């Protein structure tokens, strides 16, 4: 169970309004992307959902419970891997669980690492890994965290185009196996289309939901989808939407 409701959230810093009356929800097991230009207040939104920043108005509900200003209710994957350099891959994957539950399930983590194509790296340290591998570990850490809702903050923006496409496929394959509710922030149209069930287009300063788009492509999704006519039509639509 993981149903996120964001209701009428506004936030200003000084005179600058960053978020304006933002309302949306993520259903249980749904993959929702927030698409918006850089600097459109996406990080602020995540900080509010994560309970680090309090909203000026409005509230965040998880499974019907008000979690505004409360930390630890969502699992989070930041923009850069943010792995702990003194922890091994295995220990890093276990960190989220360790923080929330105070105990860890090493067996399951090992299994996940192996299935994620990182077998043999359990005892490696982050500095021995490539950028893509670090992101994988970071994603596994958020998947291994016990919360039902995962928030991903532009997790692949620092990767090159090839690694990025590969990571998107990889992420879907893992997610389809361990279905969780996902809120995914990105400024990449294609990435949002390929991954999501639904896309929310954010306007620039102050951020409002400018458009909501349901993406009907069937799962599991193949790489060729990106080249199909309907995919390109959606892409065009979103492209014009963002230019406005």
């Amino acid at each position, binding site marked *: 169970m993981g149903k996120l409701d964001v209701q009428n959230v506004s936030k200003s810093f000084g005179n600058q309004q960053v978020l304006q009356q933002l309302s949306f929800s993520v259903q249980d097991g749904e993959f929702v992307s927030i698409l918006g230009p850089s600097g459109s207040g996406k990080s602020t939104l995540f900080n509010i959902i994560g309970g680090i920043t309090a909203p000026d108005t409005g509230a965040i509900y998880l499974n019907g419970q008000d979690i505004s200003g409360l930390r630890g209710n969502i699992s989070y994957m930041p923009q850069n891997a943010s792995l702990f350099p*003194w922890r091994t891959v295995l220990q890093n994957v276990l960190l989220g669980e360790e923080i929330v539950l105070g105990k860890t399930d090493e067996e399951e983590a090992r299994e996940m690492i192996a299935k994620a194509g990182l077998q043999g790296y359990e005892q490696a340290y982050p500095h021995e890994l490539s950028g893509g591998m670090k992101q994988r570990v970071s994603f596994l850490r958020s998947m291994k965290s016990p919360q039902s809702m995962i928030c991903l903050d532009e997790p692949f923006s620092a990767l090159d185009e090839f690694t990025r496409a590969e990571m998107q496929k990889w992420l879907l394959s893992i997610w389809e196996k361990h279905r969780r509710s996902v809120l995914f922030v990105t400024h990449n149209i294609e990435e949002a289309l390929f991954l999501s069930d639904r896309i929310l287009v954010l306007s620039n300063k102050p951020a409002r939901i400018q458009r909501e788009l349901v993406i009907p492509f069937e799962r599991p999704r193949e790489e060729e989808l990106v080249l199909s006519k309907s995919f390109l039509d959606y892409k065009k639509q979103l492209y014009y939407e963002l230019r406005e």
Partner: protein
Amino acid sequence: MVLILLIIIWETASKLFEVPEWILPPPTSIGQETIIGWSDYNHHLWATIQLSVIGFVIGSSVGILVAICLHLVPVLREAIYPLLIISQNIPIIILAPLLVVWFGFGILPKLIVITLVCFFPITIATLGGFRQTSRELHHYMLMAGANKRQIFFKLEWPHALPSLFSGLKIAATYSVMGAVISEWLGASEGIGYYMTLASSSFRTDRVFVAILFIVTLSLLFFGLLSFVERKVVKAPAQEDE
């Protein structure tokens, strides 16, 4: 290599210019004295080792504790940090006799001297390590719902370890110096005591023997800590992203 060359130059120069032994003894006679005098001075050596190890342990514990307290209570840091710096501006040479006046000739004033010398580099280095904790990792810990204790033990403490060790290494070498200084002032044994005796009786060769052991001890402590550091600190201090 450079060291060996220097010793050779020193040896030949003191032979060539016939420098009197009480001004500058040649390395060979220092070496001789090191071997012959062993039974005379080895108890001094042990006394100093003991003193500096105990002093170092106390000093570094105090140093780490102070760093943790100042880090966890920012108000305290604002208030005490300047005092810490002032405490280091008081020459230990002046302070030591005062301590003897206050606490007598026992081991207590000596340990205080070593602690004073040791804790400062550790506190400063560890505080620096705490303050440079990566903001990204800190943000992750907050988002993940970590409480203050978890943030400290899972993030800030391991992050500060490399800095802590550089502080410890500096302090280890200081501890030997602190021990020797404290022994000058009132002791019945120790390298510092041996050194004062030797210099007042113009046994310059023995002074050099003492110097030799001070240097060796410092290096030994330093090496020992480097070894422990490699065992404890598992990753490079900074991850290059």
